[in-house]
């Protein structure tokens, strides 16, 4: 299945881009996506092992099962206001 990952702020600096599209095996979870990303580059290895994520704009735990076409946003600590 195809998963779109979004990176913001300090995580975008690590990814070197705001968006990556990856192909994952069926029944992958958010944790699997994180592991795959952390293994993909020297800087993305600096992504926390348990980052906050939003799946389709809803904050979701790492055990969340992904479905084809999901959008996973990696959310560094927020600091609005």
């Amino acid at each position, binding site marked *: 299945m195809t998963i779109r990952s*979004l990176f*913001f*702020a*300090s995580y975008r*600096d690590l990814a070197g881009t705001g968006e990556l599209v990856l192909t994952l095996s069926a029944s992958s*979870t958010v944790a699997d996506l994180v592991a795959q990303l952390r293994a993909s580059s020297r800087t993305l290895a600096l992504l926390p092992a348990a980052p*906050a994520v*939003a799946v389709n*704009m*809803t*904050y*979701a*735990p*790492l*055990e*969340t*099962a992904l479905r084809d076409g999901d959008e996973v*946003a990696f*959310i*560094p*600590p*927020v*600091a*609005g*206001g």
Partner: protein
Amino acid sequence: MATPSDGAVLLFWGVVRNQNEGREVNGLEYEAYAEMAEAKLRGIVTEAAQRWGVGEIAVVHRVGKLNVGEASVGIAVAAPHREDAYEASRYVIEELKRRVPIWKREHYLDGPSAWLGGAVPEPEVPA
């Protein structure tokens, strides 16, 4: 935006300060996951309106570069009673800081810029 039954209007502005934790700041940069930030803000406003019976709440948050003295966020609340206006206004700013996907990079006089640490939003749904 107030109606004739509103007895209190409260406007809050968050403003860029010239210092943070002892370091001199000469500007800020806000980045947002815009679509999600708007959805989360709408949710927070709806929660506040229901909890305090407040009819009118408006929130604006700027993104991009801001100078010292510029407002980054504005929250307007009109309510029949002042207690509810204060509570609702405070709720909106605290929840905004807690879970709206907006990030802040500070530019310092004495060195490079840095993304600021902040709140880690909690999952909203079970796995």
